[in-house]
């Protein structure tokens, strides 16, 4: 049998304002929500600590009654956020919910495997609501209308599912629990009816003749014959939290302080649904009547408010608002946190959320264009280098490690990471030996107690690039370069190997035709240089 839970947040506008208070301890004080023009503003709702103040009093009367009373006015973004938070509360227990102002309904009949009984479900709902900064009443019944009535009777009320027992539950309740409209309530009072049981004894057809369809529906409700449809709906895609400020903020720290509350509340709502934040959009209302958008991308879903706040702070410090901020709204994209099965044979790697925060801080430090994953550029220019957006291949999707070449064999095949082109085996070793010029370049081979290494124990020789290539002046002889002079280097050429010709990009406006040389210079280093047209450039040195 189905059981519908109704969760009601009484005085949700007042609760919305209390949610916005940074310190939860402050919420226990005497607060009143007021509305109305100027000095004639009247109290709409009060907290338990302000029991002497009654709704309907003017603010002046309320302040005279309780001088420590703090009066607040409702702000629509806060109320909307509280209403959405209430829906998220229901979505924490069911995939779809039915909502109405200050209430959310969800199917609680299938929670039997998680909770021992419906009372435990109700207690869990209240506990989770407290984490969201809401105080709620919970009623569970076989139908939506009965659950709504149950909500009005107590903080937690469970209406039995059996119709006879449900009628017995309803019978002693006062008629006000059915919330009839004022005309019908007057009529029923004139008829001398005071309890739901007395109304249930009337025949619906006869009541319909006198009070219309609304009256007949009340009688059916009193008989526990509810026909109100339960229409659950899928949740919204994003979680939104926002607030308006009394005073415009023009510095970063107070702005971040305000954002902290919004982020905490949004993450608490996501946590209710077992979700995490996959991305954050910040909408800042700035003076005069304009707004600015800041996107805060995340590498992976997170529930850590500290990391989110850090990313927001970095984004705001990088692109500060152009004018004082009068309000803000955050839009949080929900995502499921996938459990990662760690590999027994591989290191764990950086935690995705900490990695995201680190990447953001690095981007702020050196600029986003200087942080990333290097990739072999699709060009024949040797100095070219492509940096991709940092997306380290960690976690579940980590591929099997690439084979590291075994330098002890000559026939190792190495594949570039882009997989476009493979390199064949090394050529047969040429007649290598000491260059014979070590004395010239000042190097004294010292084998001493060193281990004799076979040629097969060699590593891959790297080039250390000058970016951009340094322009140099070169003295040419018939056999090749004889000396060169650059901004930082002046040297004679001891051995020059080359030229190796490379040309390309003739199909574009950036055609090049280069002749590369490997130069053993008198300073001991082995340089790579090229001639492009009339100019010579030092590309780097072998290292």
């Amino acid at each position, binding site marked *: 049998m189905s059981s519908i839970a109704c969760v009601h947040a009484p005085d949700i506008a007042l609760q919305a304002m209390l949610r916005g208070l940074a310190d939860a301890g402050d919420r226990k004080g005497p607060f009143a929500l007021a509305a109305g023009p100027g000095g004639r503003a009247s109290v709409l709702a009060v907290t338990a600590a302000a029991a002497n103040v009654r709704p309907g009093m003017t603010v002046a009367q309320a302040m005279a009654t309780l001088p420590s009373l703090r009066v607040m006015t409702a702000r629509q973004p806060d109320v909307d956020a509280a209403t959405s938070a209430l829906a998220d509360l229901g979505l924490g227990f069911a995939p779809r919910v039915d909502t109405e102002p200050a209430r959310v309904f969800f199917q609680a009949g299938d929670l039997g495997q998680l909770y021992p009984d419906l009372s435990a479900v109700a207690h869990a709902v209240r506990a989770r609501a407290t984490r969201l900064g809401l105080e709620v009443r919970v009623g569970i019944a076989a139908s939506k209308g009965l659950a709504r009535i149950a909500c009005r009777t107590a903080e937690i009320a469970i209406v039995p599912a059996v119709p006879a027992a449900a009628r017995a539950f309803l019978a002693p309740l006062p008629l006000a629990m059915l919330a009839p409209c004022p005309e019908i309530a007057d009529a029923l009072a004139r008829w001398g009816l005071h309890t739901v049981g007395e109304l249930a004894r009337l025949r619906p057809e006869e009541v319909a003749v006198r009070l219309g369809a609304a009256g007949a529906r009340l009688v059916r409700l009193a008989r526990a014959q509810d026909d109100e449809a339960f229409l659950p709906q899928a949740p919204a895609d994003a979680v939104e939290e926002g607030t308006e400020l009394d005073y415009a903020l023009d510095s970063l720290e107070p702005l971040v302080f305000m954002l902290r509350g919004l982020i905490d509340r949004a993450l608490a709502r996501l946590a209710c649904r077992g979700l995490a934040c996959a991305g954050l959009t910040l909408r800042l209302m700035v003076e005069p009547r304009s707004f600015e958008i800041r996107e805060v991308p995340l590498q992976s879903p997170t529930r850590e408010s500290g990391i989110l706040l850090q990313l927001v702070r970095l984004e705001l410090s990088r692109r500060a608002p152009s004018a004082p901020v009068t309000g803000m709204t955050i839009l949080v994209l929900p995502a499921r946190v996938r459990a990662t099965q760690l590999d027994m044979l*591989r290191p764990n790697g950086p935690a995705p959320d900490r990695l995201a925060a680190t990447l953001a801080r690095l981007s702020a430090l050196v600029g986003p264009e200087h942080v990333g994953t290097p990739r072999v550029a699709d060009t024949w220019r040797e100095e070219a280098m492509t940096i991709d957006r940092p997306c380290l291949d960690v976690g579940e999707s980590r591929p099997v490690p690439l084979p590291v070449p075994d330098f002890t064999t000559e026939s190792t095949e190495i594949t570039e990471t882009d997989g476009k082109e493979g390199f064949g085996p090394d050529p047969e070793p040429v007649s290598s030996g000491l260059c014979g010029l070590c004395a010239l370049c000042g190097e004294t081979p010292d084998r001493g107690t060193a281990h004799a290494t076979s040629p097969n124990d060699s590593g891959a020789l790297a080039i250390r690039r000058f970016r951009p290539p340094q322009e140099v002046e070169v003295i040419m002889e018939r056999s090749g370069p004889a000396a060169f002079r650059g901004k930082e280097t002046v040297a004679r050429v001891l051995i020059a190997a080359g030229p190796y010709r490379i040309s390309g990009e003739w199909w574009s406006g950036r055609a090049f035709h280069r002749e590369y040389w490997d130069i053993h210079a008198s300073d001991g280093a082995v340089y790579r240089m090229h001639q492009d047209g009339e100019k010579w450039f030092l590309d780097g040195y072998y290292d």
Partner: protein
Amino acid sequence: MSAASLLDLLPAALSAHLIPARRLEEKCGDKRGFVATALPQLDALLGGGWPRGVVSELAGPRSSGRTSILHASLAGALKSGGVAALVDAEQAFDPRLAARAGVPLARLLWVHAPGMQALRAAELLIDAGGFDLVALDIGDKNPRLPDAAWLRLRRGAERQRTVALVVTASPLVRAFASVAVILSRQGVDFGERQNFSRNVQICSAAPALLTGLRSNLALGRGRAPVDGADHYSIEFSVMARSTDQLRRKR
């Protein structure tokens, strides 16, 4: 049923991936807190690889092979599936040659940060945790860096059990490095040019072809190797560079 008969039942593709429990540690590539490099000589000098949780320094002049050793260290750290980061102060990194040296670029985070920013970037990366190796390539210009920065780097490495490798032209980290490897040039090898293909035209004006460099590895600071050798010779060969170029020309 015996273990051998169970193995026979497994498909060949699956049984090829089975690892005896006694070899798990070896497969993990983390032997007693070391991160092995792809160079056996260096691993022998260091007693198994770069030690975790300390700052290590690799110093050598131009063409002494320090960048080649850096690539080999990155390849060794990433071999077991981990993640490494390179803070490049001079933007000298060549991804093409690094990939050819066995560095899986998809798991390498590269940061270009000049001067003091390089040290700060390395600190941030180490503090993030989870990196097996964070290399700080300071380059040829050795700037004056405050001792407090090295101290923070060392404490971060200790906390996160990360290899913090500082690559410099001359020793810079001093007492803050637990291990220092000093490189010196031994020689340059040129070989006679050969025609790799009949279809490739090679200019014959130049007499030689660069085939590699030879360097000397010595331990400037740290625990002496088990076999007592105080330095090793190492060769770095130009891996199919010319062949690759010429093939592309075709």
